[in-house]
């Protein structure tokens, strides 16, 4: 998909998240089994200012996991129009460098496999070409409401 079309994608139109819990600003690349997204956490965001009190201001690692998960869901919605809501099932994450607010965080996410309406996803988060985090998520379909 060319850059012009990617720029027109509004993530909020495709995935069920909204401010302050939508962690994709832009889609940079999209293929049949991968997506690359960009996100900037504003320094004044409560998600940053309340972690850690007194500094340093870093983006919470758990939000990077969520960012990868949202990117994977967006990829599936864009490429195959799958509407199944997925939730985190199992997750492994490594945090290699602190993620800073104000600068773009790029998530390179690959869908490794799908079965039983679940998916295995691998994502790497970078900031200015520095590896910030590596995440592997097993997402499962959301249970029906009770």
């Amino acid at each position, binding site marked *: 998909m060319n850059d012009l079309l990617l720029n027109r994608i509004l993530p909020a139109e495709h995935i069920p998240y909204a401010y302050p819990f939508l962690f994709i600003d832009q889609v940079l690349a999209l293929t049949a089994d991968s997506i690359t997204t960009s996100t900037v956490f504003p320094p004044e965001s409560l998600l940053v200012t309340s972690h850690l009190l007194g500094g340093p201001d870093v983006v919470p690692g758990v939000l990077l996991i969520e960012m990868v998960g949202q990117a994977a869901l967006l990829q599936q919605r864009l490429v195959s129009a799958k509407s199944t809501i997925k939730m985190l099932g199992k997750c492994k994450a490594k945090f290699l460098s602190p993620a800073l607010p104000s600068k773009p965080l790029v998530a390179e996410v690959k869908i490794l*496999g799908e079965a039983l309406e679940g998916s*295995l996803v691998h994502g790497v988060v970078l900031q200015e070409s520095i590896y910030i985090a590596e995440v592997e998520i097993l997402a499962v379909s959301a249970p029906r409401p009770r």
Partner: protein
Amino acid sequence: MSMPTQQEPVPVSLQELKEMLEKALDRQLEYLDLNQNFYTELGLDSMGAVALFIEVQRKTGVEIPLAEAPMIQNCEQLLSYLNDNARSVYQNE
């Protein structure tokens, strides 16, 4: 008959199956009993089932549709399914 390519599915060995099951269960198995029920005897939960079937698909290239997955309750049934469907893919080449 066309020559097999690197992309064609292959059946999985018992050792590979044991390793995949252990990864899905998140624990080691003393031995692999082909007739043990994944769910009622080995304690595989829904997340584990997703992990197992994804891994099986990645290793063998055989897709297991959602509608057919509930009929696969143990390793013997899984191996049988993989062998039947690997053969079907070869015939369709």
